[in-house]
């Protein structure tokens, strides 16, 4: 079956997204070309949709994903996959700030690095980053897993409420109210099984599992000085 091709260039965004939906409605795989790092491409796509952005995309690509399989062959700007419910997003290059912000389910897989605040406020689902996750990654996440194979920048898992951040490689520093925990063998097995679905399993990794220290769960204003970073 032929693909449905969508050219973005400098066309109005609404027209591009409508064009994408037309291809999906016809049951076709969608190829999006000349993307020029434009924002808000491929938002709220339904289950069963297959879409390939052949270039870099701007902010919020794949946001509110509802089951589509999305691939970006270069970089994604800020907040790719924001608030997604299900489906998967694969980014072959770098993912910008706030990747998967507030996501509730599904999988995001980044082959390069991810910027600051990766998985900020996430409520579920999995983020796999083959490179490094940026400053403040996992900030205020409630649930879900962030798995970084190439280390983490400063303030990793800052103010983590729930969920887990798994890091193989060096962690520049932990953020406030997070702690490393010795992972059990069956937990490691679960992570490696997930990674195997992406061809990334490697039994030799030294994992650090970071969870909430849970002291901020009972925040009192008289303790504020313990949390201030300035």
């Amino acid at each position, binding site marked *: 079956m032929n693909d449905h091709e969508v050219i973005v260039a400098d066309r109005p965004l609404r027209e591009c997204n409508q064009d994408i939906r037309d291809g999906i409605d016809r049951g076709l795989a969608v190829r999006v070309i000349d993307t*020029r*790092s434009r924002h808000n491409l491929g938002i709220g796509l339904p289950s069963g949709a297959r879409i390939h952005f052949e270039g870099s995309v*701007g902010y919020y690509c794949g946001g509110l994903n509802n089951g589509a399989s999305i691939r970006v062959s270069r*970089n994604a*700007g800020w907040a790719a996959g924001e608030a997604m419910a299900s489906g998967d997003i694969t980014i072959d290059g770098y993912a*910008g*700030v706030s990747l998967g912000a507030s996501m509730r389910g599904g999988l995001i897989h980044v082959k390069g690095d991810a*910027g600051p605040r990766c998985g900020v406020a996430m409520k579920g689902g999995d983020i796999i980053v083959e490179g490094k996750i940026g*400053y*403040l990654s996992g900030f205020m996440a409630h649930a879900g897993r962030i798995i970084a194979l190439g280390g983490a920048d400063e303030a990793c898992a800052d103010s983590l409420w729930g969920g887990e951040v798994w890091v193989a490689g060096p962690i520049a520093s932990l953020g406030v109210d997070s702690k490393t925990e010795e992972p059990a063998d069956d937990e490691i097995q679960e992570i490696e099984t997930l990674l195997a679905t992406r061809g990334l399993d490697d039994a030799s990794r030294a994992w650090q599992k970071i969870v909430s220290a849970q002291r901020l769960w009972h925040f009192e204003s008289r303790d504020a000085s313990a949390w201030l970073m300035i």
Partner: protein
Amino acid sequence: MHAQRHRGADSTGFALYGEPLDTGYIVRAMVAHRHELSQVLELFLDLLRAHGSDFLADPSWDEATTDHVSVRMVIREPNSLGDWIRQVDEHSDRIEVQSVGRSLEIVKDLGGAIEVAEKHRVHDFIGTHGLGHARMATESEVSPTASHPFWARPFADVAIVHNGQITDYFTWRARLERKGYRFMTGNDSELLAVWISDRMSQGETQDDALIRSLTEIDGVFTFLYSTLDRLGFAKDRWAIKPLVAVIGEQSLSIATEEQAVRTVHLDEIEVVNFDGPSLTRTWQTNVSLDRAA
């Protein structure tokens, strides 16, 4: 800049660096009321002569129908740029100087990038580098003079564009005013330009002053600061404000959003995302710079 118009475009401005004069300054100014233009220029000339200066060429101005008029003048160097501009600024309700420099020319106005560029013939300008800014005002007024870029009064050839909010603005403004600096707007971006220039006037390099700003200035910001021969940026410790660049051997394109630099570079090319916290960098500008927005 047009590619970033969705961020707001109540006003737009350009800081353009042309071939530097060997002697004298180019002055860009806004006259408040067109019907007063000739009287205001006479007043301006009197103030120049009182400070050992004069016009080196006839002034020129836009022929638009707006009440405010953008004027370009070439002047002999006043005996003291600081003393002269302080006196001129006493008449800022009638004429507000927007830039002074051997090379720098700031033009700014109400409206979007295309409109302002056409009105002020920005496309005809030839130079080494420039800053541009499309503004969505958040905390200070919208007017032709309140838009970016800002000149760092009274430092010749220094301009700034800024995306952010400085939360200790009033504290720093009071300190700088006690040192004799004057501000024409209530805009925190104007403060940043003077803050960096003040540090440099005390012997710091541009790089060192930018690094110092990360810890001494509170707020979220990314700003570009330019002199005649060096362009740099600083980005706050919280990594809040975006910045991307395409860095070539002989060119630099730098902007808030990747899609802006991609209007210059249509092909998929290497884009540097300055996404991390506490970042600064400067570049020499005596090579050709193609865009900065």
